């Protein structure tokens, strides 16, 4: 009985604190996946939480003005969506706890700050290599194109993990987007699978169709980071979606609002990467994904019963 009253009192205190808490959302621009993240974030907060949302309209300067205005009555927490919102919060709100998300390379922009925590867009190389192995158990030589300045650390870590997993990671550095074709042609004969990572030098609007077409012609499967690539012919991908990121950010914010400390490390990997798989490509490459892999796959393209989980696929495909 005594424990029941203590629990009831604690719940009352928590609810009151949550109702009093104010959350400000800074959104970089009107992009659908930003809206998805914001919507998921809102849904994860306790009801009664006072939420104020600002749209930066793609301007860091506007974000800084908004953030500066918030200094007088700082909110309990700031949720920054996108790089520009995160930068504005970092520059103007040095004491307010801030959670950011949907930033591709936060480290290259000085993120996070001391009062900040964020969710990475990049999936850990170990998880990706595990997925590659599950998809193509016979593939030993994994090719990779990367820009040393952008993704050198990631590749180094991946190289170690691959070696540990008994795989050979053949990583070819490129310094310019124009180097990609020659690098691809050089690389393709040496590898069993091409692993596309989120390197902005390698992956461009124009190089993607080229890479996908060339690898298809060379019968070298591609493992990527986006369900769109899978839809266009890549074998598979381990990807994140904005809704999951928003939910994860909401949970993180709840912890902070409840008075918890900022998590360590400050940059959290996405908790729920999703496996996308193109069954037609698999058939083309002579692969037969196991039942376990098919069960793990969240998004399936092609084949009988092509769409495994339509509700999830719709989040990727407009």
């Amino acid at each position, binding site marked *: 009985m005594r424990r029941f009253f203590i629990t009831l009192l604690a719940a009352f205190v928590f609810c009151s604190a949550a109702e009093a808490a104010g959350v400000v959302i800074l959104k970089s621009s009107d992009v659908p996946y930003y809206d998805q993240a914001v919507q998921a974030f809102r849904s994860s907060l306790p009801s009664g939480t006072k939420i104020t949302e600002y749209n930066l309209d793609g301007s860091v300067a506007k974000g800084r003005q908004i953030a500066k205005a918030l200094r007088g009555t700082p909110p309990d927490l700031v949720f920054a969506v996108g790089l*520009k919102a995160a*930068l504005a919060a970092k520059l103007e709100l040095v004491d307010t706890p801030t959670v950011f998300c949907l930033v591709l390379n936060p480290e290259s922009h000085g993120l996070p700050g001391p009062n900040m925590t964020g969710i990475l867009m990049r999936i850990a190389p170990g998880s990706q290599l595990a997925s590659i192995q599950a998809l193509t158990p016979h593939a030993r030589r994994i090719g990779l194109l990367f820009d040393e300045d952008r993704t050198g650390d990631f590749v180094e870590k991946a190289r170690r993990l691959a070696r540990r997993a008994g795989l050979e990671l053949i990583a070819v550095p490129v310094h310019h987007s124009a180097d990609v074709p020659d690098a691809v042609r050089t690389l393709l004969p040496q590898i069993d699978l091409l692993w596309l990572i989120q390197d902005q030098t390698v992956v461009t*609007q124009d190089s993607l169709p080229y890479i996908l077409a*060339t690898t298809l012609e060379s019968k070298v499967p591609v493992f990527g980071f986006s369900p769109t690539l899978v839809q266009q012919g890549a074998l598979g991908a381990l990807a994140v979606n904005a809704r999951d990121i928003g939910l994860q950010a909401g949970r993180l914010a709840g912890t902070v609002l409840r008075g918890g400390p900022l998590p360590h490390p400050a940059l959290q990997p996405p908790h729920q990467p999703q496996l996308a798989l193109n069954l037609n490509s698999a058939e083309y490459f002579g692969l037969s994904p196991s039942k376990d892999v098919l069960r793990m796959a969240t998004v399936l393209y092609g084949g009988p019963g092509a769409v495994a989980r339509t509700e999830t696929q719709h989040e*990727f495909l407009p």
Partner: protein
Amino acid sequence: MPAPAGLRLNLWTKLVVFTTLIVVVTCSALSWFFVQRQEATLTQDLLDRGTLLANHLAATSRYSVLVKDKTRVREQIAGLLGAEQIVYVMVGSADGQLIDAAGKGAWKQPPVTLFTPPAEPASPSAPTVRRVALVNGRPRVLDPAGFPPEVSESFYDIAVPVFGTTAAFDYDPALSLTLHEPADPTADVGATPPVLYGMVHVGISDHQTVALLQTLILQAVILTLIIIAAGLVFVLILAHRISAPVKALTSLASQVSQGNLSVTASPSSYDEVGELTTVFNVMVEALQAREQDLHDLNRTLESRVEARTEELQRANSRLQELNHLKTALVSTASHELRTPLTSMKVHVNNLLGGISGPVSPDQVETLRRVYTNIERLCRMIDDMLDLSHLQTGRVALEAAPVRLDHVIHDVLLTLNYYVAQKALSVRLDLPDSLCHVWGDEGKLRQVFSNLLHNAMKFTPAGGIIRIIADTSVEGVVTLCVSDDGCGIPPDEIEKIFLPFYRSPNGTQTRGSGLGLSIVKELVELQGGSVRAESTVHEGSRFFVRLPAVPQPSATARSDQQVESPPRRQFFP
């Protein structure tokens, strides 16, 4: 109104010629329009197809162009050349360098001279289309409107720019951020325009289009001819169906005009021509009925005229009989009245003369009035008797040369009482050489007595009466008696010579209305004529024309007295 000989076309010819003309013109115009539209459509389809293929190559070779991947570009060009109408493909970079080119057929050597470096800014949706041809084995750009005679086949060079894409992956944050997250987020850049990578030239042949167009033209011509032929047959049938009944009706109408009313036309249709035929039959029936009526009328006309003539003759005889009876009655009554009146006149005269005893002055005055009225009654009875005798032809005329001036003077002497009573002025204009007239002196005296007495009655007091003789016309003497009386209205002038007629203007004067009738009868009895002229309020003029006695020569006149013609008695 008859038409000129050159324009005289019958209905059949007009129908056939004009309807055929319309069919031919309409079909030809429609065919021409159809061919024109087809040519434009086929050409546009060809260009659309070429543009589509060029755009597709530009889209798929985007990265190959950017990195000048000649191998990949060659593969893509080879794929595009698989299309039948594509004759050459050229792909170049943004700096104007030709990456690769290939052709087939006559364009085995691609026209690299036609490759144009891309110009910034270029619109992604604006291909450049030029007509080109091989002239003496060398590529040449043609004028869009012209087609040189030495060119047998033309081609289209379609050039499209190769742009970088700006696709947004709104529901794939991993890919979208990888592609679009800027290195410097603080730089507020707007929408980035597409980057120009290079240029794709596609040569497409219009050979198939031309062949298809030729087939279409042939089909259109054949179809047009078939339609025209069918239309002509239809027009001939229609013209026959319209003109044949009209011709038949014309023939029947011609027979009717020649009097043959027994014709009947059979309606061949239920349209306007059929109605015309029915109306024609009704008209012929009406003409037949009218012809029958005329025939019947003509047949009975003679007998009816004879009956009417008999009726008129009977009425005329009856009228003549009545006239004789009237004349006899007037004659008898006048004669029977005259005898007692003469006796009364003698007795009154005796009383006035005191033979039967003395009478008082008042009685004298009364007797005078009685005597005057008896005289007046006697004169009227004399006039009636004279007129009766004249009308019945029982007047004996003793014709002889008569000097009219003597007659006039004698009459004036007898009427001097009236002249003096009304202070009239009588002016005579009788030439000395007034010739003799041939007539009865007594009757002429009565004629002029009546005329002058009439003039004096109607001339107001102090008026003038003129008597003028005119001998200007040979063989005729005309005497004019004019007065200043009240005149006779124009509509009355013809009636004054009728018996008992009295002009309304002369109702204040006494008279029987027989004087002028007697004058007319007497003058005409002597071979003359009398006529009157009058103006109301100015006076009247009576002209008496009498036959003159021929004048002897001057020598004969001096030697011998006027030789009187033998006295004759004639009864006109």
